[in-house]
């Protein structure tokens, strides 16, 4: 149970719950709560709704900003104990409260979204009330945005679990209330899941639960209050990838049976204009330097984890220079597959080194993608991502055979 709770409206039951996880979001949670409340009144006004701020004991007045919003929609504040951080910990408190309230539908939105609108609540919530088990958003994205998703999370989860969920770590989602119980009883909670690994963990748990998954077309980009994708890159990379790899180990009986992949249902695509995402600048030279540095720092480690052919390929790529730099899709799939296999047999301390050693390869893959798609439109770049996913699927028999 949450360490701390304030439930001023004494809510004991709800049909629709919107959860807003936060840590020190006093500046933005007021606006987000206001938009959520408008959405609930406009689209789910006939149902019992509640907004829950699941917080990490913020010290900047997040709770006060949350309660200060003027709305008739009741609100609950939950918090982890002081010093306990992480979105996953926040959402675990939310899941427990959802179970207690016996909610039918749950929507999760991040606290720091600058451009959130009431319609987002409908897009993430309505498919659940119509029968979907899990709803993942589809934001308009620039081709160089969300590189971790494009290079690793989407291709890997798609080829493993056979469901094409394009933005599984977007940070927002909808799900049926009964799924909260599945989340709570999952044996795969880990330190990484308690932090940023929670998004891919929820999506993967939903895929493994064999429930209908829907993607909600949001029609716009998602703009964060503060957005520096590289600020916490190493931490995010480790938490997300370790969650993916832990789930691979735990769900092997499922994914070993999966062949190819299937689409999901879509929601919100009718008469929807799409806003153009803002361009994302990428420093190619810096990415190349990070790859070369990785070659120097982790050559021995790579040789231990990867077979000779793959290692020589990485050396070959190093020798190509920035102008011709390319990590072929098949090589990339092998890197991630072999790393997953190695991860399984490693001690915790060695796993940390594995992620440090994979990070320059990931940055190299981003560089490779940027070079490959620099003259492409967003649509063409998207087709390139889809084509890389197909390569992952084609190479999956290798993974299945090596996964002893």
């Amino acid at each position, binding site marked *: 149970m949450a360490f701390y709770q304030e439930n001023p409206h004494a809510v004991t039951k709800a049909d629709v719950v919107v959860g807003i996880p936060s840590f020190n979001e006093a500046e933005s949670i007021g606006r987000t709560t206001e938009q959520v409340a408008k959405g609930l009144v406009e689209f789910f006004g006939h149902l019992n709704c509640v907004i829950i701020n699941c917080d990490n004991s913020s010290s900047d007045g997040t709770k006060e900003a949350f309660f200060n919003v003027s709305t008739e929609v009741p609100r609950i504040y939950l918090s982890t104990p002081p010093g306990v951080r992480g979105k996953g910990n926040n959402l675990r408190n939310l899941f427990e409260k959802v179970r207690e309230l016996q909610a039918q539908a749950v929507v999760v939105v991040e606290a720091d979204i600058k451009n959130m609108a009431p319609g987002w609540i409908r897009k993430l919530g309505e498919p659940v009330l119509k029968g979907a088990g899990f709803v993942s958003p*589809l934001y308009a994205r620039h081709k160089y945005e969300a590189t971790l998703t494009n290079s690793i999370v989407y291709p890997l989860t798609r080829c493993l679990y*056979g*469901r*094409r969920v*394009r933005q599984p770590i977007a940070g927002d989602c909808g799900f049926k209330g009964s799924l909260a119980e599945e989340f709570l009883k999952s044996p795969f909670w880990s330190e990484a899941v308690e932090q940023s690994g929670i998004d891919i963990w929820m999506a993967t748990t939903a895929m493994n639960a*064999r429930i*209908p998954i829907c*993607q909600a*077309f949001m029609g716009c980009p998602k703009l964060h209050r503060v957005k520096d994708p590289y600020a916490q890159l190493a931490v995010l990379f480790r938490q997300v990838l370790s969650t993916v790899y832990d789930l691979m180990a735990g769900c092997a009986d*499922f994914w070993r*049976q*999966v*062949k*190819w*992949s*299937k*689409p*999901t*249902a*879509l929601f919100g*695509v009718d008469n*929807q204009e*799409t806003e153009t995402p803002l361009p994302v600048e990428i420093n190619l030279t810096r990415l190349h330097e990070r790859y070369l540095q990785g070659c120097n720092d982790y050559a021995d480690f790579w040789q231990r984890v990867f077979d000779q052919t793959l290692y020589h390929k990485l050396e070959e790529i190093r020798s190509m220079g920035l102008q011709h730099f390319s990590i072929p899709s098949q090589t990339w799939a092998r890197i991630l597959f072999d790393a997953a296999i190695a991860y399984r047999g490693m001690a915790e301390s060695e796993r940390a080194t594995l992620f440090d050693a994979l990070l320059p390869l990931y940055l190299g893959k981003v560089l490779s993608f940027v070079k490959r798609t620099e003259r492409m439109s967003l*649509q063409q770049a998207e*087709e390139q991502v889809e084509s890389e996913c197909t390569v992952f699927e084609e190479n999956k028999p290798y993974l299945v055979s090596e996964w002893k």
Partner: protein
Amino acid sequence: MAKILVVDDEEHIRLLYSEELKDAGYEVITAESGFQLLERIEEEKPDLVILDIKMVDYNGLDLLQDIRNRFYDLPVILSTAYDTFKEDMKSIAADFYVVKSFDLTELKKKIAVALETRLPT
């Protein structure tokens, strides 16, 4: 034998697909429009649907959403003369997107994969 439903308003396409796919070992049924398509699918229980996008009275992309909402995992291959529809978000609800051609090699390949796709139940 897998049963394939071909939905296309052009008779020569229905004929071409029927003959070639029958030769390839599939059972083929056809529909000339999207009229009562969901009911037809309910009755015939095809293993896969090949759906034209641009039909006189029906938009295949809208039909695709209806199919996906009711028959969540039924494989659907969009078949069209125009590759520009690929840019429509609605097309991602299809298993595959194939540009019409008299050479059905690509289509047959996609059919094989779509029918082979396996998710544990």
